């Protein structure tokens, strides 16, 4: 596994998202209120680009008529059939153990990222910035 630089942190403010190519696979990276998450950009249902999905909240319920809206339970809703995927784990909300999209570890690091195992994929990397990385 190697780390892949996604962006300089100032280029991915909260609410932003982008797709990077890692070893031939498209990975969607999301900044959700300062936390970075990365999912394979392919819905396991029929292959839609998850990066185009709505970032929203998975509503839960303790009993009929009660809507438990916890804003921290972020999901990506697939743009084609609205299946929900937990942005942290890639698990689908409807059948978490059967239907899931691969998720990747992310990290934010400062310094000389051009060295060592890090691979710059999509844009020039400065030596003295703070960067968003995806391990894949």
């Amino acid at each position, binding site marked *: 596994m190697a780390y892949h630089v996604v962006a300089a942190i100032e280029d991915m403010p909260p609410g932003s998202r982008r797709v990077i190519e890692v070893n031939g696979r498209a990975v969607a990276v999301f900044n959700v209120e300062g936390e970075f998450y990365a999912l394979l950009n392919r819905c396991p249902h029929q292959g839609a680009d998850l990066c185009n999905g709505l970032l929203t909240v998975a509503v839960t*319920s303790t*009993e*009929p*008529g009660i809507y438990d809206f916890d804003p921290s339970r972020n999901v990506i809703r697939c743009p084609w059939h609205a299946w929900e995927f937990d942005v942290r784990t890639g698990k689908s909300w409807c059948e978490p153990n059967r239907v899931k999209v691969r998720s990747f570890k992310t990290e934010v690091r400062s310094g000389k990222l051009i060295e060592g195992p890090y691979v710059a994929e999509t844009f020039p990397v400065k030596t003295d910035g703070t960067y968003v990385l995806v391990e894949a």
Partner: protein
Amino acid sequence: MNLQNLGAIDCDMHPVVPELKALVPHLPANWREAVESRGIPGFESNAYPQRAPITARPDWRDDAGAPPAGIDRYRKAVMDRWQLGHAIGNCIYGVHMVLSEDMAVALATAVNDWMAAEWLDADPRMRASIIVPWQNPERAADEIDRCAADRRFVQVLMPVMAEAPLGRRHYWPIYKAAERHGLPIGIHAGSAYRFPVTPVGWPSYYVEDYAAQSLGFQGQLGSLICEGVFSKFPNLKVVMIESGVSWFTPFLWRLTKFWRGTRSEVPWVDRPPLEIARDHIRLTAQPLDAPDDVETVGRIIDQFQSDEMLLFASDYPHWQFDNDEVVPAGLSAISIEKMAVQNPLATYPRLRETRL
């Protein structure tokens, strides 16, 4: 298949109220008088017209050609014939069609008392469903409480087409009472005829009415699951009686598929509808709508992914089968035994109390 040695449990047979007069002794004084002075003829539903073939097997009809009344005929035709262990009587007299809540209460009470006197007292193997005045759910719950003291009442009966989808919270007092007493809800084919029996309007012919009942069952299955009845009442079981069976899995495929994308609308439905149905719904296996080849029936059964869904039923006196072919072809001996004994015992806790 030999049902004879199993002590099979007939989960759907129909005691026929011969005429309104039979109920009169069980009515409160006010309603006894009203039957007389208003000249109320009776509450026969056209769901099973007297002369329609489905209404009674020809060899089971009485001498006048009417559907057979009385336990003796049933005993001879089915109970003794197949050496049944138990039978559950579902009386489908037209209490469910009555518009007045008060009259519905009086009639439901009378039918239940008539059932106890004429059927339950007549044979120790008989059990019955409680008829409820669903027109007023609070009073329906009262009637459940009243009848449930008699352990021979093992189920609560509702028509598949009443006045609103059965999952609506309006009906929950009925489910609360049923769950409290360990009684499944039996939903039987039949309409209160408040609305057309098909979603597209009134059909012209009887055959359309009967065939469309399975659409009613689909609507109720969707409603019960999506309104969260089984989240609210996790111990409740629902038995779909005389529904036709083979519509069941394809409808759940559809419901589950669309639920995946609209789950947030019904967040209390927190697992696939298919799984909820497998845990909470049971179906009587007469009729089982399918072509005559055994292989197709086998595939329909396989699609349940469970051998606990089906319950044996004769549907007496309705004419669903000829001669001794009371069990659908295509079931293994093991499945038949499950369907005739273990599944009913698991579905109706009260049957276990007296089972030797």
